[in-house]
């Protein structure tokens, strides 16, 4: 099915099941510990041996020699495979760093060996016996130091954000020089780690030439293709299965070393092999959100109208890597005739930088929305009024392209009222409660809505139940549930009558989970398959498919009513289709919007920041399940608090690695850091987006949160910290004297 004209009314609009805040259908499994994650599939392959992955101990250079004699002789060891045993393996299309093979070390904790043994304890012990001799080479590990050598680079995150290397509209320099009020500041965001709770893990089993991996992947089709490419085998010989994923946030978008080494280990051992990357490997062996240094210039008239806006971002990556697309939202968020964005990329020898929840916008808005707060103050305007004055209903670079929906102003106004914004003092550092300095902050949230081709297969059984199969993944996003809701709505069934099977490469290829495109895109694919199934049912039952109504487990037309299951017959009735998209995304700008509001208290003596209240007001199309969508938003808000106040991979600039590579050193928010969170979804449907009229929401929730926290800290203390995270050491020596 092709979606190339705006949606009119369709069965989804009934909202009997879709749009309802139903509990997740996988809830009973997840809360009882019976949902099987990758490392836990004891049932899928016989005789599973244990693999243990060894990471390189240098940041750049070569492996000169590896002595594996002791490891091979250690109790229980079945096989040892080292990177020197083979030339460098091929590289997946989505990978920047090579995953295994050959002597060259591109980054710290790059995998250099896998030990396979009868038990985990034996494999771990033997891995520690491998003696590796390295030849170190000097590396480039300091982003600021490499800045002068950085090159302009265009980028597309593939997840909805992107920018040309340099993008100009009007005459930025001229307008900025003439602006009555200006701002020119530099902001920095650190390297961040996804730190999903389930480490990357895989069980691999070979049957002749055929390889099956039970793994933890957001994108089944990409993973399968890239594993085949890396191993140099045909993709048809690889099966990926990933029904439950313990968090991804972008860290499991791409093939990683766990799948490659499980496959190599299994081949060498002649047995199925299970392995997980140990927690200390996650930060350096896999990918991370790259650090940025961002310069923002804004010029405005005294009326607050922006006349000139420039956003330039520098980030680093390995050779052949990409810049963090931190300027992407600045092309679309505010009006202004004269505009400039630029992306610069420095070559670094740190681990691979890549997508993490809202790549581009998350760090980009941390800078832009702090700059907007600063600019509002210079103009003597309320920060909300300043944003409203500069709202635009069209793409500011291409005025002929309207936004399909844009309710940013409503998000801000409703949020202001609900949060009690009028109690904020425009002068910072005014509100004091004992030793606590209290402040309010806000920021706009913005994230593009991407639509992706997505397929599904639906099978009707004789008992009137339906099974949906698609290689879509549920990474905590609620895919199981919204897909079941979609099929139930389309087929006129209660939710219990729908079974959803996900994450298997034997199923039709879906959008996968990333870039907040998964919810809308995958359900649109299920919609397409259900439309086909409805037609097949109508045909079988002798109904005119345009007239047939599907409700209460019956198919009705005129005064005839037949149980749905009757159409299935003995063999069942199956339909498969995919949703593809025309050029609506070119003709209209599709984006999602939010207003984020935060109250913080900063301790006047210690500089400790506590978040006291949070509110997000979101305009993101039809909300398919308000309960799970709200969870997506609060989870993203939580990650936004982490980015604002604590998360930072500390770079060892001499040896070239992230030092704090575990969950004790890399701090993420815990219960005590997060207050009750409020989320409001504006009533919105977007017929330009898909027949579901939905948009993404899982990443919108993080976009702008960091700046809202930072702006609240400023409002509390009068101290502006432009270097994230805002840890207490950056406030301490400037805090006001204690009374």
């Amino acid at each position, binding site marked *: 099915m092709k979606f190339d004209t705006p949606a009119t009314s369709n069965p989804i609009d009934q909202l009997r099941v879709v749009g309802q805040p139903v509990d997740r259908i996988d*809830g009973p499994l997840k*809360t009882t510990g019976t949902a099987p994650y990758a*490392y836990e599939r004891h049932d899928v392959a016989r005789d599973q041996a244990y693999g243990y992955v060894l990471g390189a101990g240098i940041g750049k250079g070569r492996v000169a020699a590896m002595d594996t004699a002791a490891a091979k002789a250690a109790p229980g060891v079945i096989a040892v495979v080292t990177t020197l045993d083979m030339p460098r393996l091929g590289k997946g299309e989505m990978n920047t760093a090579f995953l295994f093979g050959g002597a060259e070390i591109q980054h710290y904790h790059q995998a250099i060996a896998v030990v396979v043994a009868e*038990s985990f304890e034996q494999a771990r012990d033997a891995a520690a016996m491998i003696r590796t001799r390295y030849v170190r080479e000097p590396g480039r590990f300091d982003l600021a130091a490499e800045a002068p050598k950085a090159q302009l680079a265009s980028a597309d995150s593939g997840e909805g954000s992107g920018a040309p290397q340099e993008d100009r509209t009007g005459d930025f320099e001229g307008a900025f020089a003439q602006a009555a009020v200006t701002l020119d500041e530099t902001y920095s965001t650190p390297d961040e780690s996804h730190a999903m709770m389930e480490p990357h893990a895989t069980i691999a089993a070979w049957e002749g030439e055929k390889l099956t991996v039970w793994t933890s992947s957001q994108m089944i089709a990409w993973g399968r293709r890239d594993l085949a490419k890396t191993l140099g085998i045909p993709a048809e010989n690889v099966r990926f299965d990933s029904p439950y994923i313990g*968090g991804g946030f972008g860290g499991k978008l791409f093939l990683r070393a766990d799948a490659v080494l499980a496959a190599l280990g299994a081949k060498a051992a002649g047995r199925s092999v299970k392995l997980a990357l140990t927690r200390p490997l996650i930060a350096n062996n896999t990918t991370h959100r790259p650090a940025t240094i961002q310069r923002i210039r804004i010029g405005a008239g005294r009326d607050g109208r922006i006349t000139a806006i420039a956003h330039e971002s520098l980030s680093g990556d390995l050779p052949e890597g990409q810049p963090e697309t931190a300027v992407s939202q600045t092309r679309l968020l505010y009006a202004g005739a004269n505009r400039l964005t630029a992306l610069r990329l420095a070559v670094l020898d740190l681990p691979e930088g890549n997508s993490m929840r809202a790549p581009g916008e998350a760090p980009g808005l941390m800078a832009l929305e702090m700059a907007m707060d600063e600019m509002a103050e210079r103009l003597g305007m309320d920060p909300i009024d300043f944003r409203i004055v500069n709202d635009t209903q069209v793409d500011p670079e291409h005025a002929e392209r309207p936004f399909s929906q844009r309710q940013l102003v409503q998000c801000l106004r409703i949020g202001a009222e609900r949060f009690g914004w009028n109690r904020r003092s425009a002068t910072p550092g005014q509100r004091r409660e004992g030793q606590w300095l209290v402040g309010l902050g806000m920021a706009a949230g913005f994230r593009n809505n991407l639509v992706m081709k997505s397929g599904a297969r639906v099978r009707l059984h004789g008992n009137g139940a339906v099974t949906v199969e698609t290689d879509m993944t549920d*990474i*905590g996003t609620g895919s199981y549930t919204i897909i079941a809701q979609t099929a139930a709505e389309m087929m006129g069934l209660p939710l219990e009558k729908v079974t959803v099977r996900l994450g298997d490469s034997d199923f039709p290829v879906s959008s996968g989970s990333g870039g907040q495109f998964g919810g809308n895109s995958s359900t649109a694919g299920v919609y397409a398959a259900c439309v086909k199934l409805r037609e097949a049912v109508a045909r079988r039952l002798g109904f005119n498919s345009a007239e047939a109504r599907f409700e209460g487990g019956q198919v009705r037309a005129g005064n005839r009513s037949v149980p749905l299951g009757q159409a299935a017959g003995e063999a069942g009735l199956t339909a498969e289709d995919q949703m593809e998209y025309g050029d609506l995304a070119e003709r209209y700008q599709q984006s999602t919007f939010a207003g984020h509001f935060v109250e913080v208290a900063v301790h006047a003596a210690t500089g400790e920041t506590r978040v006291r209240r949070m509110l997000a007001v979101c305009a993101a199309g039809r909300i398919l399940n308000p309960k799970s969508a709200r969870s997506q938003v609060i989870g993203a808000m939580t*990650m936004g608090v982490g980015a604002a106040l604590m998360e930072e991979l500390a770079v060892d600039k001499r040896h070239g690695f992230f030092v704090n590579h*575990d969950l004790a050193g890399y701090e993420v928010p815990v219960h005590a850091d997060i207050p009750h969170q409020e989320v409001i979804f504006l009533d919105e449907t977007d017929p330009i987006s898909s027949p579901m009229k939905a948009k993404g929401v899982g990443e919108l929730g993080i976009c702008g949160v960091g700046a809202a926290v930072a702006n609240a800290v400023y409002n509390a203390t009068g101290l502006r910290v432009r270097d994230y995270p805002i840890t207490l050491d950056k406030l301490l020596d400037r805090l006001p004297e204690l009374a």
Partner: protein
Amino acid sequence: MSRVTLRVNGEERSLELDPRTTLLDALREQLQLTGSKKGCDHGQCGACTVMVEGRRIYSCLTLAVMHDGEAVTTIEGLGRPDALHPMQAAFVKHDGYQCGYCTPGQICASVATLQEIEAGIPSHVTADLTAAPQLTAEEIRERMSGNICRCGAYSNIVEAITEVAGRPA
């Protein structure tokens, strides 16, 4: 190899183990009770939380052989998909999870948290160490802070616990 007998969810289980085996790996690998999760294997995340002799413990930070003869309750011992424990049901109702990987640990810790407050055990935020600790959101958050949820379900988890504790969320 060492012999150890554990009473797991009310059932005697005798195991022949490598003495280096953590309680977590004994549960997940030998007994194939994979409800307890391994998030870090280093006592940094709480995903492996179980109850031993009625007290919660990070099962990755303790060796199985140290618990010979002891009673271990895992998530599987609290309830089943068709017979949920009230805390499991409250997590479903309040959507106190997303990916589900931290969830068994969160639920075990939640049950333990309520028991600890009930037993009068103070926490870091208990103002009066001699008075009975109060069942406040602050107490719950403090006591649950050894269980990371990277999906960020905290706000909902606190509501689930509060409901089970019998106070309006």
